[in-house]
């Protein structure tokens, strides 16, 4: 009797029942979303009908008819839009990967310089970081392109560095390595060196006595460098020839030619991202508490061991997540290439959208590509991050 009446009193009407309300509010939310989406969709389809546009990705199969300045795969105006888009994607990937590589090196160096006990080095690094971080990337890019690379001298007054590197209005020209007849013999040395280095690493990184020393790193590295070096002289003739760019009548031929657009975009992205990476690195190194370092010294570890065994693993844990977002930023910022005419994914995409009059599918394609790149990088860096975080326990 008593229990029944309690049950009776706690029974709430359905309009005040949290479970019911939860479901109802979600249904309302979805309905509102659907109405908004439907409104946009009906406007879009009527606007497209008015302009005589057809939805879909059929245009990718049509001939593009426009030139692209540079690319990793051969491309001509008679190729399809789809191929043009791929050229753009590859250009974005190229500038992003090369940019990430150099930005990491410059960023780490600057971050360490920022902690230097040398006052002058410290201040130079700080000034560089502040100037870069407080001015827009786009201004830096147009400055580097229109203010520096476009203003380089014409071909006949080319700047020359040590007879092998050249810079003029047409871009930068670097020597290119070419395999010589003895190259194949030399590759076997490299292969053997790699195998040996892996074996050394595998042995020492599990050795009870040496795993906490430098042997697992230094010995394989030394092997990896020394063995091919010996091979270089053993095969008789130098296995790699350098193709020096040659001055032609109107331009240089041979070697590696970097267009002014690519060079400017790369320079701008590297300088910009490195300043942010430097701050990330500095933060990570400073996050390692003083006591840790003192304790490590007290245990008799030498300076190098302190750095490698104590500071580095702990700093990496702090550094990797923000570093990931800097890498992603660099890839996304490469879309500013359109301002200086480098044919990246967004630039080519905008041209396609203009020519075909199909902005909707093209922009969807562009966004999907960037999303895929972002997600892939996130996943890869998260895997790496998870690995170094586990070391904690």
């Amino acid at each position: 009797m008593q229990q029944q009446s309690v049950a009776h009193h706690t029974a709430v009407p359905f309009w005040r029942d949290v479970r019911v309300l939860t479901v109802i509010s979600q249904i309302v939310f979805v309905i509102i979303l659907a109405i908004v989406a439907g409104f946009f969709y009906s406007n879009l389809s009527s606007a497209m009908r008015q302009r005589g546009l057809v939805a879909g990705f059929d245009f990718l199969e049509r001939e593009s008819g426009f030139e692209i300045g540079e690319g990793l795969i051969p491309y001509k105006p008679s190729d399809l839009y789809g191929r043009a888009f791929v050229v753009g994607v590859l250009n974005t990937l190229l500038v992003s990967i090369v940019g990430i590589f150099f930005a990491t090196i410059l960023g780490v160096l600057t971050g360490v310089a920022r902690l230097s006990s040398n006052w002058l080095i410290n201040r130079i690094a700080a000034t560089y970081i502040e100037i870069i971080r407080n001015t827009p990337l786009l201004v830096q890019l147009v400055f580097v392109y229109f203010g520096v690379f476009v203003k380089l001298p014409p071909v006949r007054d080319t700047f020359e560095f040590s007879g092998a590197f050249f810079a003029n209005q047409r871009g930068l020209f670097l020597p290119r390595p070419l395999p010589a007849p003895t190259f194949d013999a030399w590759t076997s040395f490299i292969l053997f060196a790699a195998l040996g280095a892996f074996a050394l690493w595998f042995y020492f990184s599990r050795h009870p006595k040496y795993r906490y020393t430098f042997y697992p790193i230094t010995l394989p590295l030394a092997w990896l460098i020394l063995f091919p070096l010996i091979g270089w002289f053993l095969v008789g003739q130098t296995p790699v020839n350098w193709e020096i760019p040659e001055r032609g009548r109107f331009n240089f031929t041979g070697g590696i030619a970097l267009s002014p657009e690519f060079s400017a975009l790369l320079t701008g992205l590297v300088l910009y991202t490195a300043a942010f990476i430097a701050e990330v690195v500095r933060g990570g190194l400073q996050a390692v508490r003083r006591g840790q370092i003192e304790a490590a010294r007290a245990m008799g570890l030498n300076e190098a061991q302190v750095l490698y065994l104590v500071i580095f693993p702990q700093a990496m844990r702090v550094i990797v997540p923000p570093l990931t977002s800097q890498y992603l930023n660099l890839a996304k910022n490469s879309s500013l290439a359109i301002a200086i005419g480098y044919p990246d994914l967004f630039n080519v995409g905008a041209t396609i959208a203009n020519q075909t009059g199909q902005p909707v599918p093209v922009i969807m394609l562009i966004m999907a590509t960037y999303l895929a790149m972002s997600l892939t990088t996130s996943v890869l860096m998260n895997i790496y991050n998870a690995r170094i975080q586990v070391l904690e326990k």
Partner: protein
Amino acid sequence: MTTSVDTLGPPPTTVGVLGWLRKNLFSTWYNSLLTIVSLWLIYTVVGQLLVWAFTTARWGVITANLRLFMVGPFPPDQVWRVWLVLGIVSVMMGLSAGVFGGTMRTFGVWLAAAYATLIVLDMIAEQGRPFADFARRFGEGGAGQFWIALPGMVWLAANLAILALGWIVGRGRAKWRARLILAWLGSFFVTVALLQGYGKDTWLPELGTNLWGGLLLTFMLSVVSIVVSFPLGVLLALGRRSKLPAVKIFSILYIELVRGVPLVTILYMTQIMLPLFLPTGLRIDNVSRAIAGMTLFTAAYMAENVRGGLQAIPTGQIEAAHAVGLSDALTTLLIVLPQALRMVIPAIVGLFISLFKDTTLATIVALLELLGVGRSVLAQPEFLGLQMEVYIFVAAIFFVFSYAMSFASYRVEEALGVGKR
């Protein structure tokens, strides 16, 4: 009794200038080497830059186009509205400097110094010509020309005076703090209304956002976007932590989608696609489209910042609020949000700085903000080849404002004690 003892001072190489040099520049052989190399590097780079800036550089391109850089295509006879907006900012800054003290006072001093410097520079550059011009136009046009022809110097001096007045009035009135924050928000709407105007033949004719340009547009783009994206961001952040799966999934999808693509693509989308999405009768101009794009973009980042603040609120706070009988909604509104938002102020300032710099991307969709004005100036035949001068000027303006804001953020962070509690 006491015999004077000759106390030996510390070795001269460890104290004073010499000691400092030894400790900070020449402590080891490689540090000495680094110092010498950097000194040589600084000498060549900075030296060449200074020589260029004072001899070769033609800064005339800046002074000749100063109005364009500041307000872009804004009609010259309506520029007094911009001056009035600056006046509002001066009043508010002066009052805030008085009421809040601290960092705001530092800012007030900086602003006053900036006004004073600009007045002096203007005097040197113009040598009283604007006054003669003003007298002539006032004589011809009468009272109607008064506000239009008033020299910039006078406006600057008035701003300086208003700033000082605000400080004097606001000093020691700690009670005004809440009112002042509301007034800042109100001044935002007054500013937009003032620049926008209404009707055709009124005292304040409607101008349309398309006429905003230069530094004015840069500021309006970033300020309007951050203000509008704030409520959106808070909603998305709450949505992402919501118990309702539909709301949660929507928020996560939106945030991650926007954060995964570059701002340019979103600006491009709102520029090209927004007109397609809206009914045919509804036309919105370029600037509003850019603002829409920046707002949608910023909202996602705002949401992530706010979420950081929400996560930092201890569960005990929420449980305590429930224990005293607050509903979920009231707990969020009265307990969680005020604490969380307070915590994320520095992050929001950081977001604003990056948004401020990102407004340059509007150039790509053909808007005439500061960088866009720079590019259009460089396209004029008489200013060809002056890229270095123009871009350094644009970069310097961005640097001054961004640096001041990051300085403020740092000080606010210290005052709030974020990360120390």
